[in-house]
């Protein structure tokens, strides 16, 4: 059922989810990029 509460909650969950996925995407690519360029970097 589409209520103001449920839609509000969904919008908040979507926003948080996209922010988390943005951070994880950037960090995982950065890690792999560094690994590719400097294989034994610490």
């Amino acid at each position, binding site marked *: 059922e*589409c209520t*103001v*509460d449920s*839609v*509000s*909650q*969904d*919008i*908040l*969950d979507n*926003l*948080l*989810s996209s*922010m*988390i*996925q943005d*951070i*994880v*995407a950037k*960090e*995982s*690519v950065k*890690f*792999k990029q560094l*690994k590719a360029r400097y294989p034994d970097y610490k």
Partner: protein
Amino acid sequence: LKAQIQSYLVESGNYEKISNALNDKLLQDGWADKVRDLTMQEIRSSNQANYKDVLEKIEPQALEMVSQNTRDDTLAQIKAFLEDIVET
């Protein structure tokens, strides 16, 4: 109906306001930094960075870390915009 509501929020510029306000609150809470650190710890400990695997571990914890204050404020802001839309 839900898609229409979201589309209207985007059109009116209010979706961006909600997103910016949530972003500013999370920054004030230091939440983004914590999620970033958590992600790096997970990647280092498993020594692999497969996005899907890392996300499955991180997303639930990151959602937990959002302060109730930030949740309540943002929900209140979204509801206020939705009330407007529902009326019109």
